[in-house]
């Protein structure tokens, strides 16, 4: 991944007490250079893509992280506790702008 590559990431959080799927996303094109670099680094550090997972206990979250690096797409699934190499990205995306619900 080069410095200039556009990275778009969508976090889909499912389950929890609410049981709703909430979507938040970030795009390097919308971020200041320093934050864009951080997003690229966090995405590069993700473990290999993985299939869907179930919640580890009642009302715990599951996460799907959709990554698009200049058109190359990957999908990562995590349950709580989120693995260390994905934790900072999930944390960052948990404060990212909300996206409309998929209907």
């Amino acid at each position, binding site marked *: 991944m080069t410095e200039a590559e556009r990275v778009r990431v969508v976090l889909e959080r499912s389950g929890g*007490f609410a049981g709703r799927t*909430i979507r938040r996303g970030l795009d390097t094109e919308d971020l200041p250079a320093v934050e864009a670099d951080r997003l690229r680094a966090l995405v590069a550090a993700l473990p290999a893509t993985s299939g869907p997972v179930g919640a580890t206990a009642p009302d715990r979250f599951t996460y799907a992280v959709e990554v698009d690096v200049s058109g190359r797409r990957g999908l990562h699934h995590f349950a709580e506790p989120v693995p260390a190499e994905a934790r900072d990205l999930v944390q960052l995306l948990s404060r990212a702008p909300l996206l409309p619900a998929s209907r």
Partner: protein
Amino acid sequence: MHLEPRSIATTRQTPCALPPNILERIIRNGTEEQRDWALGTLSLDTTNRMVRLQTAQIAAALPRRRPRPVPASPSARRTIADAQSTETLPGKTVRTEGQASVSDVAVNEAYDGLGATFDFYSAVFHRDSIDDEGLALLATVHYGDHYDNAFWNGEQMVFGDGDGELFNRFTISLDVIGHELTHGVTEDEAGLAYLNQAGALNESVSDVFGSLVKQYKLGQKAGDADWLIGEGLLAPGVQGVALRSMKAPGTAFDDPVLGKDDQPANMSGYVRTTSDNGGVHTNSGIPNKAFYNAAIAFGGHAWEKAGKIWYETLRSPQLRTNASFVAFANLTVTQARTLFDADAVRAVQDAWRAVGVKI
């Protein structure tokens, strides 16, 4: 011989995340190593079920010798801790049993909510805490950073502050606290798998008793209760009144970000999905509505008849960890007959038939 059915029963609590049908599939299709593991897990699960059944039969046969030295009025032993926005549990102790309220509203709400839930189970069902053995109650508040959830982790309660955009702090609704603590009761009594219909029943049982904790605290009759789950939890600006409605599943919210409440109120709308552990928070609308129907048919306080029937169903040794809606419904009818009368049986049958569960 000194028989201690309750303490024998607790040896059943081997957490098994996988329901038997999945284990059976692994046994059929898995590698040799997976098969050995699944066979071992399944036989343990079956053994535990046998122990539970036999324990219950011993207890039923020898009611007078059942050693239950329950104190006249068991009291809660609460500890509230503060994770200070970290994910380290339990965090710093900030209030213990009997101490005066503090300036932090989340601490006081957690303390009061744990107390109200303990009091409900104690007064209504003579249950001594989550495990019926006087478990001390621990709750951590301010867990994580803007964390959008509350959960029972098998040992304690955990509350996030919410993101403020979609959700307020999770201590705000008493029924949320009752819901989460009831996951502990369900794990202790029934071990319902958290998948598909058994998972939706697990969720529904938490909504049922979460709502009853609130109704009991408010002294409400079934006809006067709002039957909402998570009222007050949605942040300002979110279009909705709560997360779920037991009275009218599918009507609690309709919001651009949260989406529309898609809980069905009838089997005709049962949602088949692989997400959310098989739609456990969606299909719970069906048994939720069945409980509401029964409570309204009985009238009065919902915990007195409908609640008692559902509670004894949860405790029934015949309730399997992978129970379907129909299996659970049939057991509620059995309990209605055991605890009450033919009118109660009809009320419970009608409640399930009205949501399309064929019993």
